[in-house]
């Protein structure tokens, strides 16, 4: 894996990994209470190099290589936050955050509430999630539903280089705990971005592509797939809008419902399994709020309800352009 070179100031072309690294570095420069901790975040810079160079610049106390124990890492971060620090925790892979779920569900998500607001926990938990990189089992789970269904957590997931920087900065600045889900297969994709240019705030969905036929509602790793599908759909005579949620909690009902009401047809796309996935919540609430504007049921295009497949079979599991277009075709155009 290559080095995530220290980010120059100002507008630049950068990969999402570099943007995340820049966000951490800038946050640590601006706020001495920001501390990074996790496995291999020090000399190695993390297995994805997101923390590259932080220990060199800020020292091992600010960017700490912890012992190998996720509950211990998150539980230690809780104590650090109780003291007044702003910990940013790195979980190495999605499935390796599971040992920390008790700390997350019973303490991180609840501490502010159980202390009547006296003990907020400004903790950001960074989790590389999802598949598409040929990872072996336990390295590709799309685990967002566990977090999104837990009151007390914000759940944020960027799908662009600019959002990677902007949303991570906002998450670290938040006084509430944030589960920050990084679409690991997008780490290496590059784009122009300017750290100084503000992004839409946490909690706001953004229309990545306008359209007149129907809207694809998605987030994180599925955004590029949806944009590609929208391109291909033109040939079939469909002009598809693409909406990037960016934040699963809090959910942007206002924007989502505005778009759905105006178009009357929607497909939700994510790579996690469909059953009990976040797509269910999106489809259910959109239907509750926009029922009489819908020409067809809100359909879902998701991964199958199976454990994540081995690398050589994962492409059969992940929602692709064809499955999205099939769903669009089922939006009862004849009506």
């Amino acid at each position: 894996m290559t080095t995530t070179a220290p980010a120059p100031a100002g507008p630049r072309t950068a990969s999402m990994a570099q943007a995340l690294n820049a966000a951490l570095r800038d946050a640590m420069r601006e706020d001495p209470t920001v501390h990074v901790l996790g496995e291999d975040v020090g000399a190695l810079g993390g297995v994805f190099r997101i923390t590259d160079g932080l220990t060199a610049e800020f020292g091992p106390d600010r960017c700490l290589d912890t012992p190998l124990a996720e509950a211990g890492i998150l539980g230690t971060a809780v104590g650090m936050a109780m003291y007044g620090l702003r910990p940013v925790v790195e979980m190495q892979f999605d499935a390796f955050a599971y040992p920390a779920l008790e700390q997350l569900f019973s303490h991180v998500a609840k501490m502010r509430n159980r202390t009547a607001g006296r003990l907020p926990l400004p903790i950001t938990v960074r989790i590389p999630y999802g598949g598409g990189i040929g990872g072996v089992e336990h390295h590709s789970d799309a685990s967002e539903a566990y977090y999104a269904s837990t009151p007390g957590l914000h759940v944020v997931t960027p799908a662009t280089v600019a959002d990677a920087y902007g949303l991570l900065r906002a998450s670290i600045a938040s006084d509430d705990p944030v589960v920050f889900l990084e679409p690991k297969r997008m780490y290496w994709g590059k784009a122009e971005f300017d750290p100084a240019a503000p992004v839409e705030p946490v909690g706001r969905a953004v229309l990545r592509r306008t359209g007149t036929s129907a809207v694809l509602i998605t987030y994180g790793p599925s955004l590029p797939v949806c944009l590609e599908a929208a391109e291909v759909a033109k040939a079939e005579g469909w002009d598809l809008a693409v909406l990037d949620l960016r934040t699963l909690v809090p959910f942007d009902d206002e924007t989502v419902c505005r778009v759905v009401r105006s178009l009357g047809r929607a497909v939700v796309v994510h790579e996690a399994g469909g059953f009990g996935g976040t797509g269910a919540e999106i489809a259910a609430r959109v239907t509750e709020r926009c029922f009489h504007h819908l020409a067809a049921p809100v359909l879902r295009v998701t991964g199958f309800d199976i454990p994540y497949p081995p690398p050589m079979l994962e492409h059969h599991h992940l929602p692709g352009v064809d499955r999205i277009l099939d769903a669009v075709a089922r939006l009862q155009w004849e009506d």
Partner: protein
Amino acid sequence: MTVLDHRHHTAVPGWLPGATAPRTDPSPLLPDSAPVRVLGTPALEKYDPALLRELYRRLVVGRRYNQQATTLTKQGRLAVYPASTGQEACQVAAALVLGERDWLFPSYRDTLAVVSRGVDPLEALTLLRGNAHTGYDPRASRTAPLCTPLGTQGPHAVGLAHAARLSGDPVVALALLGDGGTSEGDFHEALNFAAVLQAPVVFLVQNNGYAISVPLSAQSAAPTLAHKAVGYGMPGRLVDGNDAPAVHGVLTEAVERARSGGGPTLVEALTYRAEAHTNADDATRYRTEAEVAAWREHDPILLMERALRELGVLDDALVREAADEAEALAARMRAEFHADPELDPMSLFAHVYAEPTPQLREQAARLAEELAAEAEVQH
């Protein structure tokens, strides 16, 4: 003063770790092996009489607190109460060894330690009364919320102590755990992080012989729980947990070591849960009256009284003073807990996030409507 006799203890069924292996002084096995006092306080003379009187006073008040809370529970004024009756020496010593700016990380059974630290019983008991989760201000009282998920407060204590140390702030964190809690993974991870980070934290395991109904022998096969320190490279101490001055002495040593950069210590205090796990528990299902009776001989207040009388430190004035303070506290508790608490249903939405989400605002509005409608009906 009275000495814990192990031949006697081995006679107590269900108490020992491993039917065969009797507990012995593990000093030689413990690192940094200053002799581990398990046989009671050697030279009470070396203790400041003022401290001994203070410990006695707090023990007496603490016992009364446990009795009153238990009574309030029988009267339905508390939803549930896990009494620390029999463990008062650990509870008051834990409160007494901490400085103003130090932090305490209690479990659900440690409300006495919280009260002994100065938190009002009305605030310390909201969790068990059922009107609120945490009733006190953790930052102001430097006391973490009562922890129910076992072992999970261990890493919190480590993180707070570590953060303080990084800030050059001479704060020590004291985490209270039970014998059962030592089996949880979080206990292991907390001790390992503490040792690796050399965090100024002290872990006090109140080994009261049981995790609800499960005896220590089914919980651990270690010679003592203090032996667990060895595997983390930290000092371990075993102490008679019903000997208040001994507990105070061992904890003071550990707190001072932590404050002076010497890192964490694991202390095992041998004590006994004199009551059932909670009022909802039926202890007759899993332990004998003989065992409970045997431990009455080792009651922390009994031991303290005997010792202080021998030393001539205990005069009638002190006895009366302590008794009066205890009764005053009990009276205040009766008065305060017999009044119904103020409840605000809308508080359910107030602190889920710094700012309620749009979704929570909708839900709060719906509840507000319902409450208004109910109010209507009442008129």
